[in-house]
């Protein structure tokens, strides 16, 4: 099991029966594959769909039925479609129980940067700013460090922000970090490493939860 899969599997356990969830493009999308059995979860796609199903077989892919990543998807029994203004009214109005997004950086204030790197081509923020402003709970799913080994969990984000004070939880292959009013707190830790190592690989100051447990990724 690689790091990304571990992250997706852990977040999947956080999804509760009856939740309405928006999954960002990339790693967050993987969460859907690992949901616990026996729970009903409805996925929203911000281009205008509730009840996003699994990807279709290639020969039945329908160009009129895509997710926000522009990938073909399918319906479930009970899907619905709506226009973009209605979709973001749903998101901004606080109706999504959970939004899982990728990130480039998160900081001690729960600030999030995930849409642009100055000097590189600006592609646009898409729906990310609306999702972090509107969802009841925002979970960041990302690898703990960059490929160059730099921490993505900082005292203060250096990249242009997607939102301020918006992240509730950060999940990486190393553990679960909760954003509290007093800063970041490590509440779960991956097997085989200790809190000191997690802190060493994190620029931000981590408080260690007195109830620190192993991050279970069944």
């Amino acid at each position, binding site marked *: 099991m690689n790091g*990304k*899969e571990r992250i*997706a599997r852990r977040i999947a356990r956080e999804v509760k029966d009856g939740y309405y969830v928006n*999954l960002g493009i990339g790693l967050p*999308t*993987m969460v*859907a*594959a690992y949901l616990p059995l026996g729970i009903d979860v409805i*996925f929203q*796609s*911000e*281009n*205008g*769909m509730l009840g996003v199903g*699994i*990807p*279709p*077989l*290639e020969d039945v*892919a329908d*160009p*009129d*039925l*895509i*997710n*926000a*990543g*522009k*990938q*073909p*998807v399918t*319906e479930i029994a009970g899907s619905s*479609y*709506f*226009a*973009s*203004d209605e*979709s*973001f*009214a749903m*998101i*901004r109005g606080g109706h999504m129980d959970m939004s899982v997004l990728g990130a480039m950086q998160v900081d001690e204030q729960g*600030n999030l940067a995930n849409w642009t790197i100055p000097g590189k*081509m*600006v*592609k*646009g*923020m*898409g*729906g990310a*700013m*609306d999702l972090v*402003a*509107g969802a009841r709970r925002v979970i960041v799913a990302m690898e703990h460090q960059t490929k160059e080994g730099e921490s993505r969990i900082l005292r203060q984000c250096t990249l*242009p*922000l*997607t*939102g*301020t*004070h918006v992240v509730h939880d950060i999940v990486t292959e190393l553990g679960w970090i909760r954003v509290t009013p007093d800063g970041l707190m490590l509440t779960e830790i991956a097997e085989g490493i200790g809190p000191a190592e997690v802190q060493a690989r994190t620029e931000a100051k981590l408080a260690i939860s007195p109830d620190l447990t192993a991050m279970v990724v069944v």
Partner: protein
Amino acid sequence: MNKVVASAEEAVQDIANGSTIMLGGFGLCGIPENLIAALVKRGLMGLHTISNNMGVDGFGMGLMLEAGMIASHIGSYVGENRRLEQMVLKGELALTLIPQGTLAERIRAGGAGIPAFYTPTGLGTVVAEGKETREIGDRTYVLETALRADVALVKAWKGDRLGNLVYRKTARNFNPVMATAARVTIAEVEELVEPGELDPDHIVTPGIYVKRMVVGREYKKPIESRFIREKMAQAGGAA
């Protein structure tokens, strides 16, 4: 009442150089392919476009970009156009990126007679720079203004000659809201039906919003990003 014209060329013939044009679609899904082709054929210049994306190289609004027709663009994501970067850096095209929900809401406001509204989106980011902010209740919000256009080009599935439109699946996206926010809305449909054939309870865009209609000659409908089940098994993901 008959809003149907014979061709996409006829439908766009009175659009002027320098117009502000909204174009429906999300990525390549639900875009007015035939009306875009007619715009490109006319060779209009200096257009100010409003659309969530900007097609891809070689398709959709990408064709307008390559023809040098676009002077400025407001959208939320333009990651699929390689030519765009050079044009923006050379100052040939003024690009404004705004959050997708704010884009949708500003257009909705333009159609609904709401000149401005407060939103939590973008607070504390570059999006809020230079904009009024205001505390309401226990939160701070950004003031955003309505967007309107001279022309909206939208794509529907079926329509009748009164301009009533229905959409198919996620090809709905920005089309209905843009249809409300332009001085002239032109709709292309895959299929023209008789008035009364569309159940009045199912109509998404009432005809009042549509000035002119055309039946699209053909639809390519490419799928931008293929991520089908076999590939999922390899990647270990789904959505």
